[in-house]
């Protein structure tokens, strides 16, 4: 780590420095550490999503980056410059807020011009720039409306334009999409991605929506209880959750409890199920309680197809069938695993008949798809 610090030391705006470099950032409220020892790097031009449930510390981490909160410990560098003691209004950051926080007494254009006036842009240049950004967010002709005269989606766009108009080096998004309905949310997600790519601005997005994280991001950080549990590109985090919490939060489908065996494998009742420990730090120790995560779409239904080496094949009973349009979700009960519940999905429900509740079927999976963790790390089904 010491070598990174030395390499990053230097004048602000040094081209080789990463966009964000956090080392051991921590923030305490009373006796609770809202953010605990957060360290990560973000390269220029990348889109990072900090993913976690409410109370995970993700918003506090964003406030530390924005400068609205001061860290109790640790150090933050933005583009090579140390942010110690730098107030929020002197940081090269644009931000879109959860409740948007548009200035109600200004027009849309007034809102977008405000950062330019505050950052002392040439007054003659401001109108043209405001017009350019109104166009970028597709609000041409609506510049003289007040925020309350605009629809929810249009207000979102004003907030985005206001955050980007002075071409900040870093854009922060504090769950601005959380309150939108699904259709508008998906539209705005694509809008964020389009604008972010068009301008190439480094972006940090905070959300509790794992789908949004996967859709938008180059990098994902998963947080829980103030700690960073995993950092990586979305696909790696999705395929190889490093922590049982991450597996649960990404909606893995089934979590099975049992006892760890060498191999690695998990013993549930009399049955030994071979699996894979995605991370040595969270791997179960043989003889200790273990928890296994099995993603619903990796469970094969029926007896067709050869079993992978070391794979598992079990008889199951259909307890419930949920038709979800593009897929069918089966709730299964496996007698051999002590009546354990299992989820499986049929991703091509149109091509063949559906199984009915009560039907006896066969399920199988490859050991690569059964992810094993130390059970003491698992927060339980409530989260």
């Amino acid at each position, binding site marked *: 780590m010491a070598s990174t610090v030395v390499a990053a030391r230097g004048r602000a705006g040094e081209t080789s420095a990463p966009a964000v470099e956090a080392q051991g950032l921590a923030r305490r409220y009373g006796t609770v550490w809202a953010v605990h020892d957060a360290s990560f790097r973000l390269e220029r031009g990348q889109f990072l999503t900090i993913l976690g449930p409410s109370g995970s510390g993700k918003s506090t981490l964003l406030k530390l980056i924005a*400068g609205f909160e001061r860290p109790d410990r640790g150090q933050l560098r933005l583009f090579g410059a140390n942010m110690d003691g730098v107030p*929020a*209004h002197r940081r090269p950051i*644009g931000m879109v807020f959860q*409740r948007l*926080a548009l200035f109600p007494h200004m027009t849309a254009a007034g809102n977008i011009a*405000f950062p330019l006036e*505050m950052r002392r842009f040439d007054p003659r240049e401001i109108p043209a720039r405001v017009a350019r950004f109104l166009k970028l967010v597709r609000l041409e002709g609506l510049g003289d409306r007040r925020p*309350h005269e605009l629809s929810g989606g249009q207000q979102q766009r004003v907030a985005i334009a*206001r955050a980007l108009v002075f071409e900040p080096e870093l854009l922060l998004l504090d769950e601005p999409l959380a309150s939108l309905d699904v259709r508008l949310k998906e539209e705005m997600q694509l809008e964020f991605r389009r604008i972010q790519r068009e301008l190439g601005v480094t972006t940090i997005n905070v959300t509790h929506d794992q789908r949004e994280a996967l859709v938008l991001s180059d990098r994902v950080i998963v947080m829980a209880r103030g700690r960073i549990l995993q950092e990586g590109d979305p696909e790696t985090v999705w395929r190889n959750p490093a922590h049982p919490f991450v597996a649960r939060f990404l909606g893995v489908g089934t979590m099975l409890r049992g006892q760890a065996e060498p191999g690695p494998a998990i013993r549930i009742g009399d049955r030994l199920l071979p699996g894979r420990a995605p991370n040595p730090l969270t791997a179960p120790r043989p003889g200790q309680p273990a928890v296994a995560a099995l993603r619903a779409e990796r469970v094969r239904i029926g007896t067709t197809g050869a079993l992978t080496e070391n794979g598992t094949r079990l008889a199951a009973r259909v307890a419930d069938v949920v038709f979800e349009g593009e897929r069918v979700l089966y709730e299964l009960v496996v007698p051999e695993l002590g009546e354990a519940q299992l989820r499986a999905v049929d991703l091509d429900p149109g091509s063949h008949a559906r199984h009915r509740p009560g039907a006896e079927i066969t399920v199988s999976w490859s050991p690569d798809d059964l992810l094993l963790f130390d059970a003491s790390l698992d927060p339980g089904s409530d989260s």
Partner: protein
Amino acid sequence: MALLVLLAAPSLVVAGASLTAGEIVRFPPDGLSLRWYSRILDASELRDALLRSLEVAFVCTALAVPSGTLAAIALARFRFRAALAIQLYLLLPFTVPLIGSGIGLMLLFGELGLLGRVWPVGVACCVINLPFMIWAVAASVNALDPELERAAASCGAGPVQTFVLVTLPAVAPGIVAGALIMFVLALNEFLVSLLLVDARTVTLPVQMYTQIRGVITPDLAAVSTVYVLVAAAAVLVLDRLVGLDLFLRAR
């Protein structure tokens, strides 16, 4: 409906009486005329008293707006030790009898040699009624989204720019509402004025009271009606502003 009539009755009676063509106050009036309105235009002691009341109201409002606004924002934003004492202070207008605070101010102003002048009455009204100003502004401040000031900071606005360009405009409806309340209260103030003025510097309510003790002529009814109309105009403006307040909300 009956309640509305009851509430409006004194104003209606006095307005009716002011239109009398006769020589004494009576309801219903003896015929209709505006002669008493033209009479009050000529009555110099009433007109001078009105001007003094306006001066009192302006002095009071001019003091109350900055002090009440800053106090309200500070109270709503910062938690400090004196908070309980300030909460109690905000209840004062309901608890301390006006005659009590009036006598206190009379003694104080007497010591300072300020009795018998007009502007100290405005100061007194401001001191006594300031909690109303603070309430009005605090309601606006509490309705303010705290993200608004952070948003200003993220736009590059320093603390002073944020306060002047974002916080103040956002709480402006509360400030204007409070200012109007202070103005009307000071314009109508009777008891404190009575204690602080002398015969040459009476305010309008005191002047009217003095005249009532002599002969009650219809010009007093006319003045009262003008008074009611001024207050009603203030209430209308207030209503517009409270409406405006909603109007300004982002969502």
